[in-house]
């Protein structure tokens, strides 16, 4: 036994050093291939210094525009989340094995959600810009569909864990499927659903800040403009506003989570 353990440990050691070497080799290879040679790095540090010195003090020439853009980002995030939540609620019921009409439909929706999840929000934004043009609309759609990818999965998992006794009880009282789901199933998973939806709103507010970079509305566009005109002081101001936005979103969603946990019972009365 002891001998076995020793040899096992040695094998593990050899394996580890091989992996370390391979990782290092790959790192050097990538640097060379991407033409990241030391003098370039040194030069970029110079440049970084220049940018930094130009960043301070942060300014904005159009405070109203900046404020409006921040609000637009938040609106995009909220509308995208609401749309995503509504569609996900519907799809998750059809995806949950214990509630669906057919197992094939369940597989299909799960596969669809998996695919949608695998494509980043920014790519969706680009696709929707092609489809509907620039502005907040493609942003909303991109966040909605990206949310669906995640929410269908987590909602579906919560639904698959419910106590089927409730479903049987309401069905045996003559309730229709829709009644069973809205009166029996959803109240049972409300806490989990609320927590996931708020978490998603949080994620979407982060995303909405960068969606503007590709032209899907909001504050990201301001950042883009400032950077392109080499107005680093303005860029810093936009970054500070984005930071404030994301921070307050986190605080608010944390607060709402606590509140809903405490007030679910009363709200349902």
């Amino acid at each position: 036994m002891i001998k076995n353990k020793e040899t096992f440990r040695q094998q593990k050691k050899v394996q580890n050093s091989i992996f370390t070497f391979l990782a290092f080799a790959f790192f050097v290879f990538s640097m060379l291939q991407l033409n990241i040679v030391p003098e370039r790095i040194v030069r970029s540090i110079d440049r970084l210094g220049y940018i930094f010195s130009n960043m301070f003090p942060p300014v904005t020439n159009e405070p109203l525009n900046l404020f409006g853009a921040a609000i637009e980002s938040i609106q995009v995030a909220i509308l995208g989340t609401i749309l995503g939540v509504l569609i996900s609620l519907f799809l998750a019921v059809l995806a949950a094995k214990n509630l669906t009409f057919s197992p094939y439909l369940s597989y299909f929706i799960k596969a669809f959600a998996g695919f949608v999840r695998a494509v980043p929000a920014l790519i969706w934004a680009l696709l929707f810009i092609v489809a509907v043009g620039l502005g907040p609309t493609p942003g909303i759609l991109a966040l909605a569909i990206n949310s669906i990818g995640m929410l269908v999965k987590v909602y579906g998992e919560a639904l698959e864990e419910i106590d089927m006794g409730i479903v049987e009880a309401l069905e045996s009282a003559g309730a229709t499927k829709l009644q069973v789901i809205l009166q029996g199933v959803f109240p049972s998973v409300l806490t989990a659903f609320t927590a996931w939806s708020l978490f998603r709103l949080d994620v979407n507010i982060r995303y909405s800040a960068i969606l503007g970079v590709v032209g899907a509305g909001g504050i990201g566009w301001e950042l883009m403009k400032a950077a392109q005109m080499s107005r680093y002081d303005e860029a810093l101001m936009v970054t500070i506003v984005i930071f404030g936005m994301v921070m307050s979103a986190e605080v608010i969603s944390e607060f709402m989570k606590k509140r809903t946990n405490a007030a679910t019972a009363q709200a349902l009365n």
Partner: protein
Amino acid sequence: MMETILEIKHLNKTYPDGTEALKDISLSVKKGEFIVIIGPSGAGKSTFLRSINRLSEPSGGEILFHGEDIVKANRAKLRKIRRNIGMIFQGFNLVKRLPTVRNVLHGKLGYMSTWKGALGLFGQEEVEEALDILERVGLEKQAFKRADELSGGQQQRVAIARAINQSPSMILADEPIASLDPNASRVVMDYLQKACRDEGFTTIVNLHQVDFAKEYADRIVGIKNGEVYFDGPVHELTEDVIKAIYATDKEAMPV
């Protein structure tokens, strides 16, 4: 007491895995009867009860309820039949996060339009009726508490109230007291019996406590290996019969 409300003919149930849970069961139930079904674990008691309102699909036979064959009923018809049969479960099966009174209101879903029921748009009258029923099972003080704040015995009384609110003509109860202590069991059985007497419900209860069965039943049905082994009034259920119902095949075999 003469009218037959439920007529079961040659009921069979084979589960997909090949288990023959019910073998050719025939039973006739009169209006207002309080029947207790007893039998060893795995005999088919739950399967039998759940076949009656098709929570478990029968494999063959007829179940005539008020003269209508439940086995042949389509979805819409089945829904109408089900609202006329209250069901009580061992695990209470309440929506735990909802207030007690809302759980009782759920008994009315079968009478409401799909959307009205789904959105929970219960009228003032319906709420008052639900509160009345809660009072009758002694839970008026618990009406606005969340269901999971109640004790097991209280939760089962809420389930009884929900069933009463269906204004059914029959109640099925599958081991309603199996997870309760003796005191709570007695209280629940008393309320169930009282409700059934007051409202004239026909009642079929699965129990595994023979003493409770003898105390509450008008008629006892013993099921063994998926078949009706005994069917008669309480005084005919002798110690020997009880022994035979609960005897495993091994014990019954000569050593």
